[in-house]
């Protein structure tokens, strides 16, 4: 008897449609979950998207290999199409849908997983060249997916290195100025003026203040802001760290 002409009401079909929609949604949630997991592992969104799509198609290809037998029942896409029976049952024999399984008698397959009966193993020839070709295709797809994922990872690493190099290039690097550098005119906060020649410093004892100035040169590309200073009374040769930051006198206040 046909599903359509057996007095099926509109409500029945709508119910089956609703169940089918829920089933498809739930099946696709697996794809979402997998690509979301890859999305947490990589920086490249396309890598994550293709990982989800790749999982789906690899599983489809593996599912098409009949000699894999019962292993296929654990593949994520093996039961993807089972909802179609909901809309077509009655009109077509279940053998057309499950070539290897006996027709099931479940009226409303709310959980279509349960409706599949594992068939007894038939006689099968394992050295089938079609099977070998299909297996090779599936293996190639897996290798491609792996390579793609690896390439995404290394692309991530390259991007991170480039970002770090970019940040290093934006850093200011201050050295002492050269003798050829121009003389700079400086005004202190109390409107005291003086000139600092290139490559030199300026120390001046005023009536109520000691004026210190130094000519520096920025050889980096970033902008430097001098926050404070710390004067040492002896000669320092070479780099031996700096005084503790608390002892620095702030420039700003």
């Amino acid at each position, binding site marked *: 008897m046909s599903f359509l002409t057996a007095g099926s009401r509109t409500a029945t079909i709508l119910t089956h449609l609703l169940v089918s*929609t829920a089933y498809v949604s739930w099946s696709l949630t697996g794809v*979402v979950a997998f*690509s979301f997991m890859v*999305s947490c592992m990589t920086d490249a969104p396309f890598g*994550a998207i293709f990982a*989800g799509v790749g999982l789906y198609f690899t599983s489809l290809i593996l599912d098409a290999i009949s000699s894999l037998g019962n292993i296929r029942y654990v593949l994520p896409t093996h039961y993807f199409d089972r909802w179609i029976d909901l809309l*077509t049952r009655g009109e077509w024999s279940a053998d057309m849908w499950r070539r290897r399984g006996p027709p099931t008698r479940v009226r409303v397959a709310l959980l279509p997983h349960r409706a599949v009966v594992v068939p007894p193993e038939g006689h099968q020839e394992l050295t089938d060249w079609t099977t070998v070709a299909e297996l090779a295709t599936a293996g190639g797809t897996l290798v491609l997916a792996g390579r793609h994922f690896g390439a995404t990872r290394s692309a991530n690493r390259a991007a991170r290195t480039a970002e770090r190099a970019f940040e290093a290039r934006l850093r200011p690097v201050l050295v002492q100025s050269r003798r050829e550098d121009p003389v700079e005119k400086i005004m202190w906060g109390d409107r005291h003026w003086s000139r600092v020649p290139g490559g030199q410093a300026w120390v001046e004892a005023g009536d109520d203040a000691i004026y210190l100035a130094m000519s520096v040169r920025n050889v980096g590309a970033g902008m430097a802001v001098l926050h404070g200073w710390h004067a040492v009374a002896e000669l320092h040769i070479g780099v031996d760290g700096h005084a503790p930051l608390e002892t620095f006198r702030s420039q700003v206040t």
Partner: protein
Amino acid sequence: MAVAINLNPPDARGEGRLLYLASQTGLLLPGFALRVTSAFMLVIVVALFGGDAIAGEASWGNLRYLLMRPVGRGRLVFSKFVVAVFCAWVAVLIVVVTALVVGSIVSAPMPSDRR
């Protein structure tokens, strides 16, 4: 799709059983639409929702600012996942509802209703 089915009625004994049924009643057009889209297009759309959720933010550099907010990482990941799944379900639902509306407009009424 519905117009194509109406103009070119499929063979009952042909390949697409669901296609034939969909040509009989517009109510089953959503089933056929679901069958066609869920094989390829919906998978890509759905993988887009899942895959773009975090990696997309990371590639745009937004993830850093997102993590600065006073929201825990676990909660961020969980809510992003829930939203991705919800978007995927809505995508499936849109296909079904659109096909239902179009099918009820374009295709033939139910055979049982005609009697």
